[in-house]
């Protein structure tokens, strides 16, 4: 085919090479034909624009926004064009264009949806010819393999273009060496060199940065470009790869600026701690509000497993169902949620069906897990252990350590080793008591529909076996999302998620060795770390078919399913329905109503047999039914008036939450299956309603936009919550916001044309009503029996809390200033924000003196501020035309918190509020430590020393400082109990709260391969670890020792030792025979205070998409295989298992696990 080409004045991008330019000219004939074909359509478009001294680019932008037409031109050409005064009001596009180009050396041509600008004289230059080649292909979603309909494929630098049909297919005639520019709303732009191929299949990945991307906000959606609140969006690809994580929300870690995600436990389904922009309260709730498809959900069952981490009901949400997660952070975004907005809002949107061909997606994953590579090192040499104990006891003049000493408090021991036997055993209990975990999962989903009805239906299954024996978790779930549009003006829909989990949880307690495992909670990871000695055998030496000392503490015996049941079943029904009606006679007005209920039923059964519990079998049966019922009704109005756009929501919402709890405990169960038997002794039966609260709200929001670049918004909410007394029940929350798309201004010139800058800010108020109900009345606890159960009515009551009638809302004034940017045609994009959250009337459970009879009381006690900066940047590091692609996403957040005010009633003296081991004091951060200060080991005496506090100065000023002697030197004291307890220091700046955190994701792709790795980090916090403290005090107990202790304790005069000399049962016999009693040394001291900073190689994922061939297409559309490795390496100075999520540590639980998994995803 021969085609005549326009001359060298064909429009082009500025960076387009002249050679390529020449090769891609269009024929004048084609232009003319195209022009004729589209003229009728053009006439239907109209333009409204008014600007004096306007650049042509500004006019083009306005046209593009109002009509959707794209412009193609040489920027340099436009720079030479003079400015002009333009005023159009609903002017037809063609008329407007004619006006714009009138008397200018430029003219235009419309091809499809593209307006091509060129010099007038070049229209006649139609002399060259070029051969075009026909190519074809399919454009698919890289994640799902689904064909994408309506994708624009254009030859870069030309007007040759096409769009994909309903099957995602396209055909195009292109010149040699053409580069295809592929664009699609919501997806990353892609450039692909044709390189002589005739079939070019294209994968597009969804974009989280596209300015036209739709962002879910409270009670509606907005285009990302128009959003003036601080919102982070996480797309489904984060949740796609197989992972050892058993809770989807842990995968948010490192993905969103300002969002701290910390998992402190590797237990199956353990909850994840998520904080948005710092800790906004001390005692009231600090977790964000979770909303799934408009439903505020239940996030806890209230069932703990006396020793092991709670299984969060969040793990019943299938990550494969998630389309996106939007995290609302500032008042502009959250004020619409009023009293529930102070801690931020996380909105989860699940997949919906789309009109078109039905698709079926199948994915199967499997993996293994094990303890992380960073381990805690224990002394596993039994002989060495005995030597140290000998030394300790001999120092007390009591001779050598004997097995009698060892067994002295193990009164339920049934087998007694000799020392010779013991010394011959060396068991690494961490290794012995754990196993390799594994998991398998399968997901099946189908989506499709028509213009009238669309559906998304999915099913999931996952089975996890923990690294702890007898611990597993099975989950099943189905979801059906159905949307129906029976009338043009009416939409109906329902989302139904049913999920079940069944699991065995196991125990986690190092206690029980002395009392015959009376509570039945002995065992688990804590026991392996802090109770088991290298010479404790698993099986009896006398009879290897039996366990060694099963009553005393044998983690293998207590994890034997024949001896212990700790099962938890959960059932979740998350159901919602909506109806939306567009009122026909008022354009842009619709009404919508949503009704939803989330019900989580959790059934726990705990049974321990007489084989591991000395006092007979014991059983607990517990159940909770947690409900969250929500109803809302609101009006939506959206309308553009010329240059003005208005988007409004007004509505009302009601919510009721409650939980019904039942527990039964009994002993000596009798029955065919003992776990299900009748208890001979009933310890306790309880049934009651707890946590009931109601919320009634009225809300509204208006967003106004002028000229598509001046943005303003207001949110208003009035909430009434039953957790407050009637006088203080209602609260009003208002937020104002504004934004300015700076890059659209004419003065930004060509910079503005190729870059995007939006400045935004908001100020508003949100509340926090996350406190228990009934705080205004004195509460009583039951279950305090006295006498005998054979007498009627032995139960007693005790005061459990004092009623406080004047509690008011904790309110947060939230200032947010930010800039969203996209440079180099969006190759570098992101946002930078500053926030300041000032919490008034801080709700705090103040510690009371023990004589008050209760430990704490609620009150509005002061003010707190969180301020910080957060940055998120995504960079496409290589030109998108290359086959090898590399992108980097970084987010980092810095948070500073400070107590601004404490009421005199809680801090009259100015010394701060003390709640061991923390101090809350004006001018300092929350959770700063208040501890004894270790001054090292005295080389002369071998005694641990602490710094003395200047008590007079403390009394006068409330400040802690070291006491100096006459020579100006620090006064040191022996670190005995009394000294430590009376010489605490405020460890200023050392808090349990991280001050910075974030993540870096790098993605590489080459052809069908994709590699990504995520590094997360967090720091600025300190960890006070009492477990390590106790492990370094071997004189206090017969427990294990850390390797670090063995060679580092004081032995002789002059030793510069890390740890003090050995003691025997709290007493140290000095060389001169005097005995120094140190009392109970378990006092908070900074010797076991560690930096909590860490950098973690969190995950590495590699995927490969099989090249599509015609024969494969007959079977499936797309196949992708993955492998992922999680929790690979952690850099930290903390000597425990994992610093993540740790603050004040009093016991160890299973850390996050290393896992490796593979998976396959097939799209049919």
């Amino acid at each position, binding site marked *: 085919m021969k085609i005549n080409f326009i001359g060298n004045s064909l429009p082009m991008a500025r960076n387009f090479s002249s050679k390529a330019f020449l090769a891609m000219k269009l024929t004048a004939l084609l232009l003319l034909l195209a022009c004729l074909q589209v003229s009728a359509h053009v006439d239907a478009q109209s333009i409204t624009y008014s600007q004096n001294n306007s650049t042509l680019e500004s006019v083009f932008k306005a046209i593009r926004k109002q009509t959707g037409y794209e412009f193609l031109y040489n920027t340099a050409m436009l720079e030479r064009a003079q400015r002009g005064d333009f005023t159009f009001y609903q002017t037809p596009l063609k008329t407007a264009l004619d006006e714009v180009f009138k008397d200018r050396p430029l003219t235009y041509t419309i091809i499809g949806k593209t307006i091509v600008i060129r010099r007038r004289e070049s229209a006649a230059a139609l002399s060259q010819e070029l051969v075009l080649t026909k190519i074809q292909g399919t454009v698919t979603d890289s994640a799902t393999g689904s064909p994408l309909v309506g994708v624009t494929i254009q030859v870069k630098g030309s007007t040759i273009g096409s769009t994909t049909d309903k099957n995602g297919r396209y055909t195009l005639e292109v010149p040699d060496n053409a580069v295809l520019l592929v664009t699609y709303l919501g997806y990353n732009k892609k450039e692909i060199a044709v390189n002589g191929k005739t079939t070019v299949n294209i994968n597009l990945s969804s974009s989280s940065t596209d300015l036209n991307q739709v962002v879910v906000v409270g009670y509606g959606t907005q285009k990302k470009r128009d959003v003036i609140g601080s919102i982070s969006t996480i797309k489904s690809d984060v949740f796609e790869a197989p992972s050892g994580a058993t809770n989807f929300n842990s995968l948010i870690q490192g993905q969103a600026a300002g969002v701290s995600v910390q998992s402190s436990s590797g237990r199956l389904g353990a909850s994840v701690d998520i904080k948005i922009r710092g800790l906004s309260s001390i005692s009231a709730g600090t977790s964000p509000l979770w909303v799934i498809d408009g439903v505020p959900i239940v996030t806890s069952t209230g069932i703990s497993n006396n020793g092991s981490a709670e299984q969060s009901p969040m793990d019943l949400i299938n990550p494969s169902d998630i389309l996106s997660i939007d995290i609302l952070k500032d008042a502009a975004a959250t004020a619409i949620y009023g009293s529930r907005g102070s801690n931020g809002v996380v909105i989860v949107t699940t997949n919906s069906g789309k009109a078109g061909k039905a698709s079926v997606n199948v994915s199967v994953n499997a993996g293994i897990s094990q303890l992380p590579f960073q381990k805690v090192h224990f002394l596993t040499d039994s002989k060495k252990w005995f030597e140290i104990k000998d030394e300790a006891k001999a120092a007390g003049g009591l001779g050598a350590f004997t097995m009698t000493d060892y*067994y002295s408090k193990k009164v339920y021991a049934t087998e007694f080793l000799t020392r010779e036997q013991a010394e011959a055993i060396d068991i690494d209990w961490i290794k012995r008591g754990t196993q390799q975990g594994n998991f398998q999962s399968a997901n099946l989903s189908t989506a499709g529909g028509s213009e009238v009805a669309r559906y998304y239906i999915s099913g999931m299954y996952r089975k996890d076996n923990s690294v702890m024996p007898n611990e597993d978790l099975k989950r099943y779930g189905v979801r059906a999302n159905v949307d129906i549009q029976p009338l043009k003006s009416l939409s109906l829909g329902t989302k139904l998620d049913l999920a079940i989990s069944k699991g065995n949880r196991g125990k986690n307690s190092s206690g029980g060795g002395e009392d015959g495992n009376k509570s039945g909670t002995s065992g688990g990871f804590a026991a392996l770390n802090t109770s088991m000695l290298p010479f404790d055998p698993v099986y009896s030496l006398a009879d290897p078919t039996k366990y060694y000392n099963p009553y005393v503490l044998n983690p293998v015996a207590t994890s034997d399913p024949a001896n212990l049941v700790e099962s938890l079943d959960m059932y979740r029904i998350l159901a919602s329905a909506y109806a939306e009606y567009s009122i026909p006679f008022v354009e842009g007005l619709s009404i919508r109503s949503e009704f939803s209920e989330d019900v989580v039923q959790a059934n726990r059964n705990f049974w321990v047999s007489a084989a591991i519990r000395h006092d007979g079998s014991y059983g607990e049966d517990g159940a909770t039914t947690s409900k969250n019922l929500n109803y809302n009704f609101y009006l939506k109005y959206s309308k553009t008036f010329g240059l003005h756009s208005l988007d409004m929501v007004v509505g009302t919402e009601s919510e009721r939450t409650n939980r019904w709890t039942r527990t039964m405990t009994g002993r000596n169960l009798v029955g065919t299956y003992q776990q299900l038997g009748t208890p001979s002794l009933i310890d*306790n039966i309880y049934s009651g309603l707890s946590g*009931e609260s109601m919320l009634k709200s009225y809300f509204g929001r208006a967003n106004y936009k002028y000229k598509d670049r001046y943005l303003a918004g207001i949110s208003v909410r009035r909430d009434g919550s039953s957790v407050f007394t009637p006088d203080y029940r209602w609260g009003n929350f208002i937020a104002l916001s504004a934004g300015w798309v700076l890059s659209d201004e004419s003065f930004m010139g060509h910079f503005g044309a190729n870059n995007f800058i939006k400045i935004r800010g908001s100020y508003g108020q949100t509340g926090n009503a996350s406190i228990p109900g009934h705080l205004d009345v004195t509460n009583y606890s039951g279950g305090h*029996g006295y006498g005998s*159960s054979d007498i009627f009515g*032995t139960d007693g009551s*005790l005061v459990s809390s004092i009623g406080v009638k004047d509690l008011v809302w904790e309110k947060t004034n939230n200032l947010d200033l930010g800039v969203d940017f996209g440079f180099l045609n969006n190759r570098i994009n992101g946002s930078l924000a500053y926030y300041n959250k000032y919490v008034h009337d801080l709700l705090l459970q103040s510690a009371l*003196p023990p004589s008050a009879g209760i430990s704490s009381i609620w009150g509005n006690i002061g003010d707190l501020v969180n301020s910080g900066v957060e940055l998120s940047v995504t960079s496409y590091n290589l030109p998108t035309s290359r086959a090898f692609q590399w992108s980097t996403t970084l987010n980092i957040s810095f948070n500073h918190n400070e107590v601004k005010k404490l009421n005199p009633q809680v801090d009259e003296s100015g010394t701060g509020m003390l709640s061991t081991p923390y101090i809350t004091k004006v001018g300092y951060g929350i959770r700063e430590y208040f501890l004894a200060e270790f001054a090292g080991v005295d080389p002369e005496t071998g005694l641990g020393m602490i710094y003395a506090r200047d008590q007079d100065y403390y009394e006068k000023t409330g400040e802690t400082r070291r006491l100096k002697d006459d020579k100006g030197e620090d006064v040191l004291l022996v670190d005995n109990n009394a000294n430590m307890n009376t010489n605490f220091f405020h460890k200023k700046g050392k808090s349990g709260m991280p001050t910075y955190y974030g993540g870096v994701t790098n993605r590489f792709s080459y052809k069908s391969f994709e590699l990504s790795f995520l590094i997360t980090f967090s720091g600025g916090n300190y960890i006070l670890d009492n477990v390590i403290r106790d492990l370094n005090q071997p004189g206090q107990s017969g427990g294990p020792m850390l390797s670090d202790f063995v060679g580092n304790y004081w032995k002789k005069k002059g030793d510069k030792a890390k740890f003090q000399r050995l003691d025997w049962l709290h007493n140290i016999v000095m060389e001169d025979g005097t005995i120094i009693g140190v009392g109970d040394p378990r006092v908070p001291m900074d010797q076991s205070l560690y930096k909590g900073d860490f950098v973690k190689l969190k995950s590495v994922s590699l995927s490969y998409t099989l090249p599509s061939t015609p024969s494969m297409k007959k079977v499936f559309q797309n196949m992708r295989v993955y492998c992922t490795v999680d929790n690979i390496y952690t850099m930290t100075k903390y000597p425990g298992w994992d610093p993540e999520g740790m603050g004040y540590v009093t016991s160890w639980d299973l850390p996050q696990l290393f896992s490796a998994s593979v998976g396959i995803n097939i799209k049919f």
Partner: protein
Amino acid sequence: MERPPESPWNNIDEFDRAPRGVYSLLFAAGDWGNVFNWWYLYKNAVGDDAAWSTPGDDAWGWYRDTQNNKDWLDGMFGTTYQAIASINDALQFVDDHAGQPFPGLSDDDKKYNLDRIVGELYFLRGFAYYMDATTFMDAYVPGGPNDSKQIPLRIEPSSSYSVAANSKIGTVQEIWDQIISDFQKAHELLPERYIAGKTYAAYQAGRANKFAAAAMLCRSYFALGDYSKAKEYASEVIDKNGGDYDLSEDPIEAFNKSTLARGKETIMYIPCYDHVVGRQNLHASCFSNLFNGAPCDWTAIYLDLTVVKRLGWMTDPKNDTTINLEAWKDKRFSQLMFVREPANVPESKRVPGRYYDKRVNMEWRSILCNKYYRGADGNYGNYTNVPQIRLAEMYLTRSICSFLAGDKEAAATDLNVVRKRAWDAGVAGVSYEASSHYVTSANITEQMINDERLVEMFCDGDRIDYLRGLKVDVPNGDRAPGSVHYTDKGFVWPVPVNEQKLNDGYH
């Protein structure tokens, strides 16, 4: 709301929960958490009648090292005040309703239940303060100022943070005045005994009655050095109890009850036989022989060897293991004590059925208390009720009060009642009256009464309170030669650090 908050007590039966919760809290927390047992464990430990098997183990205060914090005492402090807070709230509830929280009560309900419940609440508040006063307060000095502020005095419920965090700190005098006042109100309101059909059924399980209040008044006045008043209330218990209490049974009878039955001398007891609501305290094993029915190998307290020698039970305790006949004549030795053999006896020489200490340092015989886990009632045998107030104590208090008042005859009479009950005529081969143990006004001495009480009340947490009430020096026992003044700070445990930090009343 589906369930709006309501009063925890909507009728008189429900109001019985108020004292029951406090009884449970103070006396029946069970396992390792029973603060009542912590209290008498520390008392047992600091007395001069206790020797110590585990050198270096200062967890229990035997070293009288009150400068060192003891977690259990912190727990006891907090728990007693938790009890006080609940009582204050319940008493306020009655006051708020002008003394008639449940209008329309029958006269019987008013007397046997409402008054009785209020009486119990006063009794329990007095008891909680008594526990704290005898642990955390200086000894009362008769005629002294007793005006140092020592422990919080809370007699009204806290209604706000400022009240809860800023209490009055009572002086020694004020606290004892409060204790006396509470026991007197209890004494006025409490019935003499449980009456089936009239008194709420749960009341029969060892709970306080008028005589318990009188006995506590006796103890309290004795602590103040007011021996006249102490004698007056002891007499009421001894002479006016309507036949409910006497010393007609063997000493063991008070300690081997596993049902609602009580020993004839027991005025008040903790029902411990029921695993559900009355659980034995495991800490008792630190000073008593048995732990869940088996010999406990960590029992730390044994009878001080100076005392053993003074009683004539052993002649040369550390070197000669012979137990003299003098000991065997005393039923309290044979029934409520236990002989633990030395650890260094070779296996070949060990006598079957005897218990040999496992601690190598214990190279001599030791005599242990054996009052707990004594029942023989099948499944519940290991969990026997714990007597809190016994009639023998009243006799011995009256005896010393009479003696100090110069009435040696009365003193001898009361002492003989206790001695005779303990006398094993079968072993001695002679009746008590005919024996040399029989006391007359001519030969009675204060030491006799004191030693009799030491044996009778061994490990009942009495000895230190008795000596401090007697206002005499407290011997050091096995710790060191000599004695210390009864006001010695070694018997006064510090108010928990947290209390001093958080209670503005201390600042």
